[in-house]
């Protein structure tokens, strides 16, 4: 294909097949498609895409290497600034970032940067030898220990950067498995588990110790970590506390938070017959919200065998915050969209289980502080939606455990930890934070970026503290 030609579509499993399993939906480019797509890149001098990327991957360079049939070298270029390309290639909101500012996007369609990133990462995994992790840059630093709290993308990135620099790193994870949202939130049909496992194994291969089932703030305080051998602490505990609507009937049974719904399935495997965690297969499920979590919940409900799944959202299509691709996928799979609709209360049966939602219709008014048009209720427009399952997916607030048990930690009124944006350091010297726990629910790539900044911040903090000139 010539420069600027038409975009190669991502090959996907057909909807009727994929809704019957948790197989990955997007199949990825083959070599021919990847090279063809790479040839579309104009190789712009001023590289707008690089500035659209939150971690400034040298995009034209890695695309050039793919074009030259050297995807392994391409992956190395990406890995200079992004430790988890196989994950980011799959879950980043490229249409809001690099692909949004691609020069081709103005004329026709952007280069499929995300798909190419994924191609390079997957090829590298296939062709390279994972047994040889890079040696630490400075082995003398290994006498300094750093604690990383949380094993989501922020924690994994901070840990891997620090270990590569030479520090001894221990990750403390509250759950019995690593990965944070990448494991319990994002379903396998978007991010297969072997890819996540590969990345976690890589972090382990760097010498990082991972201790699961340790809840920091409860078993061990942040201050205890500093007092018992750690020079610095990185808090990457994410935004784990689900928001609810706060309307009557919300605690009826059959009403889940997005986190609970997804955790039962992704982490506890409730849908597999020999796993003990229970789940009820919905007949009619309603998912409240239209972000990534909502799409994931809706598509998961379909795969469990729900007859009908409806997204209920108070704004319109244009305001839906989920990745464009996932909205499209959900639609193809048969998820319905009940837009401009706001739940007022939940109605239950005699057993205390939900049986309907009373909603009112909305219309869009002026733009609010987020720049999106504010939904306002249409008077006397109440109507009912019958359903036996409701999944409330309105986003998350930071988990309160560490904040509650670490009073010296300065936080925003909504719970986010306050940090110096240049170093990631919090109000407690030696304690750093990054990812969703600082920003509120954001993106995988932003959490990784924050992990990187904090790793650099921790490195210079420890060097200064000990007057190191190594």
């Amino acid at each position, binding site marked *: 294909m010539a420069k600027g030609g038409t975009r190669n579509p991502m090959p996907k499993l057909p909807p009727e097949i994929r809704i019957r399993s948790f197989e990955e939906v997007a199949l990825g480019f083959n070599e021919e498609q990847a090279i063809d797509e790479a040839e579309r890149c104009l190789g712009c001098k001023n590289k707008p895409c690089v500035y659209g990327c939150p971690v400034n991957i040298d995009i034209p360079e890695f695309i050039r290497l793919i074009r030259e049939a050297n995807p392994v070298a391409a992956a190395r270029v990406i890995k200079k600034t992004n430790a988890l390309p196989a994950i980011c290639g799959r879950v980043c909101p490229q249409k809001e970032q690099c692909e949004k500012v691609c020069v081709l996007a103005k004329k026709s369609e952007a280069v499929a940067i995300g798909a190419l990133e994924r191609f390079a990462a997957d090829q590298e995994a296939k062709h390279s030898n994972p047994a040889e992790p890079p040696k630490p840059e400075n082995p003398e630093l290994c006498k300094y220990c750093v604690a990383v709290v949380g094993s989501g993308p922020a924690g994994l990135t901070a840990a891997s950067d620090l270990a590569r620099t030479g520090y001894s790193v221990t990750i403390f994870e509250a759950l019995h498995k690593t990965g944070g949202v990448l494991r319990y939130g994002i379903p396998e049909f978007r991010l297969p588990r072997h890819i996540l496992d590969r990345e976690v194994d890589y972090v382990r291969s760097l010498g990082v110790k991972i201790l699961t089932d*340790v809840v920091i703030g409860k078993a061990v305080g942040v201050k205890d970590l500093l007092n018992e051998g750690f020079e610095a602490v990185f808090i990457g505990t994410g935004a784990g506390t689900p928001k609810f609507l706060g309307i009557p009937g919300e605690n009826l049974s059959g009403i889940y938070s997005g986190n609970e719904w997804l955790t039962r399935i992704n982490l506890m495997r409730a849908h597999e017959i020999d796993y003990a965690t229970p789940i009820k297969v919905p007949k009619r499920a309603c998912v409240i919200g239209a972000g990534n979590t909502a799409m994931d919940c809706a598509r998961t409900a379909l795969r469990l065998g729900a007859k009908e799944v409806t997204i209920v959202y108070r704004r319109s299509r244009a305001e839906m915050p989920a990745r464009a691709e996932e909205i499209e996928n959900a639609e193809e799979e048969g998820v319905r969209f009940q837009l401009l609709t706001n739940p007022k209360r939940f109605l239950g049966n005699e057993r*205390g289980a939900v049986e309907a939602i009373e909603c009112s219709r909305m219309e869009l008014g002026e733009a609010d502080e987020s720049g999106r048009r504010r939904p306002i209720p249409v008077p006397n427009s109440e109507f009912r939606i019958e359903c036996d399952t409701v999944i409330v997916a309105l986003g998350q607030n930071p988990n309160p455990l560490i904040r509650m048990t670490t009073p010296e930690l300065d936080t925003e009124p909504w719970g986010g930890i306050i940090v110096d944006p240049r170093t990631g350091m919090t109000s407690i010297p030696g304690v750093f934070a990054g990812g969703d726990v600082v920003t509120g629910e954001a993106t995988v790539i932003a959490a990784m970026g924050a992990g990187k900044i904090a790793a650099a911040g921790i490195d210079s903090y420890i060097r200064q503290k000990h007057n190191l000139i190594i």
Partner: protein
Amino acid sequence: MDKQDQKTHVGKWPQNCKLASIEPEHLRNVIVRKEKLAPTVTLVEVRAPLVARSAKPGQFVIVWPHEKSERIPLTISDRNPETGTITLVFQEVGRTTIELGQRQVGEEIASVAGPLGNPTEIELYGSAVVVAGGVGAAIAMPIAKALKEIGNNLVVILGARERALVILEDYMRAISDQLIITTDDGSYGRKGVVTEPLQELVSAQKVDFVFTAGPLPMMKAVAQVTKPHGIKTIASLDAIMIDGTGMCGGCRVTVGNKTLFTCVDGPDFDAHLVDWDELQARKSFYFDEEKAQLKTIAGNKQ
């Protein structure tokens, strides 16, 4: 790791081991003691050094026996920071607790995370009554002990269906000023339910504080007895949980018209303000699924 090694780790930890030098194998949850307290009630003492060093009465752990299990909350009945162990008591009712009961001394539990939840507020109230039904006695055990140690006059009422299910009798007798036992069938102690002696007690004397743990209908009934007398009554709730850290919201409960999370805001709540019927509905939501799971183990018992 062989037996000898396990012993040395027990000895070494936690006194000489700084947090920065913990290795994953230090935290393996090996069962060191197991006792049947009643035909379906089992006690295990299990290594969980980080839990043992910070647990307080009223807190719980989330236990995940093996790869295919559910995560379930169990109250920490006792702890020993020297040996790095905690004591858990559970009734073998569902698939997960039955499978947990099948683990032997020397075997491991895949994961034990905690201590979670808030400790029970122990104060010198004056006259305190602890009302426990079934395995609720194990939940009440550290609370009763702490209430007594701080100087309260302590009455313990233990209820069970039948004699064989009365647990921790000797322990409770030793730490209380008065122990009352009731059984539904009259096979031991008084015939009847715990609320009868409680009713008599609150009518006859001044009671300043009641702590209750056990089946939901019992705790609800206890709250109904003490409410007219304005007696501060705290119930330890066991909602359905997954993570135990405030992440899923599955454990939410309505208390005084507010939605709270049992795992981070509880597990203790003012028994007069809890919406008991809602909690009961939420707890029994998976009744059919749980019954089906029982068949799975019955079908492939090792």
